[in-house]
C-alpha cells in the first residue's frame, strides 16, 4: 500500500541535491500513501565512524531513552564523537570497532522506548508520519546532499499511523543497507523463521524488513547485490516491486507477475526509479521522458563511480 522512489547520481559525488530530488518524487506520488513518508539518504562516508539514528519519541521518556542509549554506547566501547536531538530522533556519531551485528542488536535493546532507525557509515534514515513536505519541515531533508537515496510513502491500512511503522527499513544488524518496498511477501513467516534459526533478529513484523535482512545476509556472505536480487525473485513469494541501496549501489527487483508498478529513467548522469512516472516527471517538469518499465521477474543494479 504505498509508493516508492529511488535516485542515484552516477558520478559518486556527495554534493547532489538528493534530499530535494526525493522530496519532489515522493510529493508526486503522495496519493499512493498519504499517512507517512520516509527517506534513506546516503551522504558523505564516515570512514572511521558510524552514524546511529534512534526514534525516541517526545517528553521525559525521550530524555530517559537518550541517557540509556548513551550508557549502552559506553558499555559497548562506542565513543560518541558527536550527537544531537532533532524532532523525535536522536543521532549519534560514534567510533566503534567491534562486531557490528551484536552491537546493532544491543542498541535495539538499549532503551525500552527507543528504536534504531538506521546504522551506517553513510546511511541516514528519516521517517515520520505525514507527507514528504511535513517530514522535510521536521527534519530538514531538503538540505541533505548526497550521492543517492530511497524514499517511500505509506498508506497505513493494517496498523495505525506511527513513525516506527513508516518506511524505509534498515536491514537490522547490517550497516548501510536500506529498502523500500511496494507489495506483499506471502511466504514471509517461512522466510523469517529460516533467518531467525540462523540467529537474525527482527524488529517488526513488516515484510520489507525481511527483504532487507534477506539481501544483507546474502551480501555479508560475499554475494554481490545483483546475485542477491536474482535469488530474491526465486525465494520470495508474493507481489513486490522493491528498491534496495547500499553505500555504493542501488538496485531493484520485481516479482514474476509484475503486479506492482515501477518505471525508470536513466541518463548518463543519473538513474531514477519510481512507482509512477509522475514522480520521475517531477525531476524534469514540462519534459516528456524516455522512460522504461522493467519486465516481470527482472532485477538490475547501478553503482556510483568512485
Amino acid at each position, binding site marked *: 500500500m504505498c509508493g516508492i522512489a529511488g535516485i542515484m547520481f552516477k558520478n559518486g559525488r556527495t554534493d547532489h541535491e538528493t534530499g530535494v530530488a526525493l522530496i519532489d518524487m515522493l510529493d508526486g506520488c503522495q496519493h499512493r500513501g498519504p499517512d507517512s513518508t520516509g527517506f534513506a539518504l546516503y551522504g558523505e562516508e564516515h570512514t572511521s565512524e558510524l552514524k546511529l539514528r534512534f526514534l525516541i519519541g517526545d517528553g521525559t521518556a525521550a530524555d530517559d531513552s537518550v541517557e540509556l542509549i548513551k550508557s549502552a554506547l559506553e558499555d559497548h566501547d562506542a565513543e560518541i564523537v558527536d550527537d544531537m536531538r532533532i524532532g523525535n530522533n536522536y543521532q549519534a556519531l560514534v567510533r566503534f570497532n567491534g562486531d557490528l551485528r551484536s552491537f546493532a542488536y544491543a542498541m535495539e535493546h538499549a532503551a525500552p522506548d527507543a528504536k534504531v532507525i538506521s546504522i551506517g557509515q553513510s546511511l541516514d534514515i528519516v521517517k515520520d508520519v505525514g507527507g514528504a513536505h511535513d517530514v522535510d519541515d521536521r527534519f530538514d531533508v531538503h538540505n541533505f546532499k548526497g550521492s543517492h537515496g530511497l524514499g517511500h510513502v505509506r*498508506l*497505513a491500512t*493494517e496498523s495505525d499511523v506511527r513513525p516506527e511503522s513508516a518506511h524505509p527499513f534498515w536491514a537490522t544488524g547490517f550497516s548501510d543497507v536500506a529498502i523500500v518496498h511496494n507489495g506483499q511477501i506471502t511466504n514471509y513467516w517461512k522466510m523469517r523463521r529460516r533467518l531467525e534459526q540462523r540467529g537474525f533478529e527482527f524488529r517488526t513484523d513488516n515484510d520489507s524488513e525481511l527483504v532487507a535482512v534477506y539481501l544483507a545476509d546474502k551480501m555479508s556472505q560475499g554475494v554481490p547485490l545483483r546475485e542477491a536480487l536474482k535469488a530474491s525473485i526465486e525465494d520470495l513469494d508474493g507481489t513486490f516491486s522493491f528498491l534496495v541501496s547500499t553505500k555504493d549501489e542501488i538496485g531493484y527487483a520485481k516479482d514474476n507477475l509484475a503486479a506492482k508498478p515501477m518505471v525508470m529513467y536513466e541518463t548518463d548522469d543519473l538513474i531514477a526509479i519510481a512507482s*509512477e512516472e509522475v514522480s520521475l516527471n517531477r525531476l524534469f517538469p514540462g519534459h516528456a521522458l524516455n522512460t522504461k518499465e522493467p519486465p516481470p521477474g527482472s532485477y538490475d543494479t547501478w553503482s556510483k563511480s568512485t
Partner: protein
Amino acid sequence: MVQIDLAEIPVRQANELIRKYGADGEDIDIINPDARHHVGVGLTDPVTVRVHGSAGYFCAGLTDAAHFEIESNVGWGLGDNMYTGSVIVGGNASAIAGVAIRGAEIVIKGNMGSRAGQVMKAGTLLCCGNANFMAGYLMYGGRIIILGDSGERVGEDMAAGEIYVGGKVQSLGSDAKMGDTESSKIDELRAFLDRYKITFNGDFQKIVNEGKKLHYKTSERPMRSLPFVGFSGKSDYWNPKIQEDIHIKSQIGRYRVRGYGGARELPHLADIGFARNISGLNEISNPVSKVEMRTLIGGKHGAQPLDLSMPVMIAPMSYGALSRSTKQAIGIASSLAGIAENTGEGGMSDAQRGAAEQLVFQMLGGRLGWNIHDMKRANGLEIYISQGAKPGFGGQLMAKKVTKELAEIRGIPQGIDLRSPSRHPDILGGDDLLIKVEEMREATGYRLPVSVKLGAGRVRDDIKIAYKDGFDFVELDGMQGSTGAGGAEVMEYVGIPTISAIMDALDGLAEIDADGKIQIILMGGLRDGVDAVKSLCLGADAVAFGNATIIAGGCISCMQCHVGQCVTGIATQDPEHEKRYRPEIEAHNIHRFLEGVRWQIAALTHALGYGDVKSLNRDDLVALTPEAAEITRLPYRPELREQQHLSKAV
C-alpha cells in the same frame, strides 16, 4: 482549439474544463501533463484531446467518442473501458493498456506493459513495439495487434477475440492456441495499419481461444426438487441433502454449482435477542408515524447521498442471474418503498433504470456491462470485491442464461458458462484501489457516492482499506448471503457469518480510531425487520435484503437458480419462462414485504423506547447462545430464549 496547462490547474478542474469544451465541440491541447493521472476521463464528446508530454494512469478512461493523442508515454489502464473513439500514444504504455475497451481503437507506437487488453470486449488494440506478458488476458472479444514480440503467455484464458503477432510468439497462455490466418482478416488488419499510417510488411501469426475452458465438460442435470426444509435436514446423518450431493457428483465428477443460500447451521441474528421485554409490540398503534427512519447514505465526501425512507436497501443482484422482469419489479418496489436498488454485476437495463428511483451501479472485475453512460445515470457507483455467498470468487452464469441479449449488454460471447474474473485488472492493492476510486469520481464529477461491496472474510483488514481508500460506504455481506450460482462447498464453508462480519468491521475501525467514520450496510441472510433492527443495534447504519426480496416476489426456493429454467420466471433468461412472471403484480408483493419490514423496524424501535432508529444500540441486545455471545461479546442470557417469540409478536 483551447489550451489547458496542468502546471497551472489541478486535474479535477482540468477534467471539468475538458468536458465543458467537449460539449462545445472544441478540441483541447494539454500542456505540462507530467504524467498526471486521470487526464480526460469521463469525456463523451467527439473532440480531439492532444496531450503534449506523458500522461499517467487511466488516460482517456471511461470515455466514448473522443480522440486522444498523447505525445509520449502513458501509465496503467490506458483507455480503460473506452467505448468508441481512439487513442494514439507516441511512446510506451504501461500495464493493462486497453483494459475492458468496448469498441475503441488504441494505437501505441512503442511497447506496452503486461496484461494489455485484459477483459476487452470489442475494438482494436495495436502495439507497434513489443508486448509484455499475458497480452489478451481474459479477453472476451475484439482484436489485439502486436507488431513486435508477443510476450510470455499471450492470450491467457481468452474467451474470444483475436491476437495477431508480427514478431515472435514467446509462449501461449492457458486455453490459447495458434489459429489460421484468413487473408480477408489480414487485409482488414493492413487497412487498419494504413489508416494510422503505420508501415509493416512482415507476416502475422494469429492466436485464438482453444475452447477447453469455456464450458464445463458435463452439465449438471436438474434433480428432483427437494423442499428446503428437507434439504437442510438435520434429522439424520445421511440426510437427503447429502444423498443428493453424492448423486450429482457421481454424474458430473466435479464440484456442484447451485443457487440460493447456504444451508449450514451457523450463528446468526436469530441467536441474538432483545434485552427488554417487547411483548406489547402489537398494541402500538401506527408505530411508523412515531419513529424517525429516514437515512442518508454516502454523503461523507460531498456526493449526493442516497436518501432512504428507512435504513434498508435492496442487495446487489444482477440482471442475468435474474430476469429483466424481476429486476424491473424489484426496481418498482424499491421506488414505492423509497429505498435504493442495486444493479449487481452485468450492466443496467433501461427497464431497471426507469423502475428504480435510486439505483446503485456495480462494477466487477470482468467489467461486464460497465460503461460511462450508465455510470452517469446512476445514483451511486459500487466496486464489487466479493460477496458473502462466495468470497474470493467472481460471478457465475451458466450457458443457458447467457442469451444473445445478455451477451450483448455484457460484451461477451453468447452461450458460454461465464465464470467472471474474481480479481479486478487494476486493483491489486489498496494503493491501486485509491487511484481507481478517484477515476470513478473524476469521470462523474464527484457527484455520486462510491461504495465497496465486501464478502465477509478478512473483514478486519478490508474495512480499514475501504476507509483509508475514501469510500463513502461499505456493503458488508456475511456468509449467509445467497447467490444465483455458486460452488456448493464454497457457499457452505467459505467466509464468516454475518454477525461476525459486523463485529470484525467495527473492531477493525476502532483499531485505527475510525469508529463510525464510514457507513456500513449489513447484509447476508437477513429475513425481516427484526433482523434489521438487531443489525442496527449491533452497529450497522442500514441493512440490505436480497433473497427475502426474491421470495416476496414469488421465489419457491427450489435452489435451481443456476440452471436458467426457473419455473417462476425469476432466475431465467428464457422468454417462455419469463412470461410467467408478472412484474406489475410482484412489484406490489415485494413492496408489501418492505412495508412489513418498515412496520417491524418502527414497532421494535418504539418498543425499545426510542423515537429514532439511530438511537438503537448494543445495550438493547443480549446473546441467546454461547456462540453468539462469544462472537458479539453481548451478555449471555440463555433464560431469555423462551421469551423471544418475536416472530409471533410481530
